[in-house]
């Protein structure tokens, strides 16, 4: 089992992600430069956070056209696993691998703080180490995390069980106050139709060590490790 982290110019959470993956998988990920197109041997592709191309024009827009993205799309078409976090989520939507788009935060400010997420289903390769409805904490750090899609798309995502995580309060309830960036229906993360591509805004990879404030983010990586080893 092998994970690859795709490095676009301007990405900056690739090291955080590598640390989390190595500590949970027991194996260091391969760093994949955005010009590479041969992803053979990789089971999981991770698009990490940061500011690819400076977030200029639109977050993720330019990275979505990188040479590597053709290979990422092919990997997804073959049923391969893809995880996009923060800027990675934005890139996946810009590339059309996930529906919707991420707008400026409703309050128009960058938000760097911990938020609470509710796990909407626990039967995917990304969430098996959680229970459905479980709440965990994750740092967020973004200026454009306000998820949007038209009403039909939102209904379809809900109907197909493709909402992965929602912003909630510490008790697991949705509220306007807990939905810090104003996302439609408090959506923090979504799946592709086969639930093998996941995009989310917050950073579970920054909470995998008790010393850094907790291990709330570990189940994501432990779930993947368990599934991919099997």
């Amino acid at each position: 089992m092998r994970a690859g982290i795709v490095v676009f110019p301007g990405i900056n959470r690739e090291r955080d992600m590598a640390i989390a993956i190595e500590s949970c998988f027991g194996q260091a990920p391969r760093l994949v430069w955005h010009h590479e197109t041969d992803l053979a041997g990789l089971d999981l592709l991770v698009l990490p956070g940061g500011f690819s191309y400076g977030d200029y024009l639109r977050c993720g827009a330019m990275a979505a056209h990188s040479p590597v993205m053709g290979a990422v799309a092919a990997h997804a078409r073959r049923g391969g696993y893809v995880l996009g976090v923060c800027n990675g989520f934005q890139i996946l939507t810009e590339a059309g691998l996930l529906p919707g788009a991420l707008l400026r935060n409703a309050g128009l400010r960058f938000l760097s703080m911990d938020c609470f997420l509710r796990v909407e289903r626990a039967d995917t390769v990304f969430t098996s180490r959680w229970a459905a409805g479980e709440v965990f904490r994750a740092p967020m750090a973004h200026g454009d995390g306000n998820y949007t899609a038209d009403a039909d798309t939102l209904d379809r995502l809900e109907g197909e069980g493709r909402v992965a995580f929602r912003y909630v309060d510490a008790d697991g309830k949705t509220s306007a106050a807990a939905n810090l960036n104003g996302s439609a229906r408090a959506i923090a993360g979504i799946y592709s139709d086969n639930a093998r591509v996941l995009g989310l805004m917050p950073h579970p990879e920054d909470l995998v060590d008790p010393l850094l404030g907790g291990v709330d983010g570990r189940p994501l990586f432990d779930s993947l490790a368990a599934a991919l080893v099997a």
Partner: protein
Amino acid sequence: MAQPVDAALARSFGLSAEEFATVLAIMGRTPTLAELGVFSVMWSEHCSYKSSRVWLRTLPTTAPWVIHGPGENAGVVAIGDGLAAIFKMESHNHPSFIEPYQGAATGVGGILRDVYTMGARPIANLNALRFGDPGLAVTRRVVDGVVRGIGGYGNCVGVPTVGGEVNFHPAYNGNPLVNAMTVGIAPADRIFLSAAAGIGNQVVYVGSRTGRDGIHGATMASAEFGADAEEKRPTVQVGDPFTEKLLIEACLELMATDAIVAIQDMGAAGLTSSAVEMAGKGGVGIELDMDAVPQRETGMSAYEMLLSESQERMLIVLRPGAEAMARAIFEKWELAFAVIGRITDTGRFVAVHAGVVEVDIPLDPLAEAAPLYTRPHLPPVPRAPLGPVADPLGIEAALLRLVGCPDLCSRRWIWDQYDSTVGGQTVKRPGAADAAIVRLDGSRRALALTTDCTPRYCLADPQVGGAQAVAEAWRNITATGARPLAVTDNLNFGNPEKPEIMGQFVAAIAGMGAACRALDFPVVSGNVSLYNETDGQSILPTPAIGGLGVIDDAALAVGIAPGAGDELVLIGATAGWLGQSLWLREIAGREDGPPPPVDLAAERANGDFVRGEILAGRVVACHDVSDGGLLVALAEMAMAGDTGLALDAAPEGMGAHEFWFGEDQARYVLAVADAPALLDRAAAAGIAARRLGRCAGTDLTLAGGITISVRACRGAHEAFLPNWLQ
């Protein structure tokens, strides 16, 4: 039509008549416009430190762990495991008033370059900010822009912003201070310096292209640029954090090879100062081909290219044969790469543009004849003792007002806009501890980082204020359990040509030096920012201190949040000093009296004792007592720990307001499981200590039936910035 190069033009460039006479003597002829530009920037206050140098030399700069002190792009200290911490602080005050967002953003970019140019990967940013009266609309605009700018740049380059400080005072109305600090890590045996070497070696330009950004404004007044002057006007520097991020990665990639002989960022005075400094330090000459400089605009003159302060650029001297490999790295990162010159044995700085020798200056005299002034300075007048001050308000109301006032309110609104976790090593984020704690990748070791200064103390007594700023930085590091190692400073003052201002500067340095010596806390880098005045009104003297410490096991670091049942002990003596306290200003409406004295021996003894307790694992939480005094420190701990505190009575012999709000120095509040044992150990060590109470319930309860809800405190504490700025 070109204006003649003469004393009048030199004056408009900021050179005095004597300085221009020295230029003529060095050159033996009338300098060209470009040459005059070179002299004027190299001899400017900013680059030459002509007013401050004699005093900076009095600061202690050495210790067994110091690898490079002042004189390099940043200071370097050994932190164990064969690693070095590289750090510096720098100001971007004036640009941040003109254009707050870009001014602050480019300030962050500039200080980052000073650190990674030495081979370090930047791992943390901090800042020290001073703003004017919050009642003014312009202050709000400046705060909003500066905070967005710092976040906009730091977040994008992916360096966590982990700490800082903010003050408000009308003295900063027309002149806010934006001081940015960067800390990086490198192998101690792979530090890159700027001294050029190797006759014939190539000089390479990398990064962004050069435009007409920030060329010295005064020079533009000359008729040199004719009718299109408007179009060629100097422009505000706009930061490009994306390019900076690429430049960091590309430079670090090249630094992993053996291609680099010397490297230097292009900071103030751009290409001129980096070329002159690299050649000067190496004792060689340098020749630049200005036609080869990557340019963003058309028709730039040699003068403009030499003085441009376009951001995100570096100058590198390459080892022979390394060009192709270096070029490949920068092209991979889609950055400009151009060979623009070579190292010569002439000892001269030569710049040729379109076949014309625009600059030909001997480097030694340029450096050696640089002006150096011992400006007249008046010793500051000591403030009269304060005398007794009655309490007009009572403890409860005073506490609620203090925790909500601009200088003490929560900074959450600010740090919530800074990415403090990127890098995945932030152990203590803003607000969690007295110093930020950032772990070293793959190690148990961590750095403790802080910025500190109390300008109102510095105005009332610059010497005490200078010492206090250093002591507070040392104390904040100590309060986490870390071992303070060294400081960087940013000395922000008014016009040094005024003897009172120069007197403030001299006294502040004396205080800083004394504290640095007493605490084994040498100055390894820094920056001086003078002429911070508007309409003749000077800022408060503000010698901002950036402190760095190390803790061998990050798991031992403590924050300020105690838990239910903990007992609270005060370390350090309390006299109830109200002079220059925030209580006096905010509650009694007076900015009066001398600041609290700084007893360096007590600082050292108390701090060493506290650190020992923390490292022995006997302390749950620790917070130093500073602005606002003891009760404010306790309220901050209660809010952080979400617990009430049952507090013992204030001692006899002083007013309750003096005890709770006095700002005596060298004090810490410790939350521990066993207070009597701690008091015994303190007594045995000869350290003043006193039981304060314990964590219980949801309110602060004081003897005499005073009850203050922690919720109400939090409401007041969190309200000010969001209400003011949203």
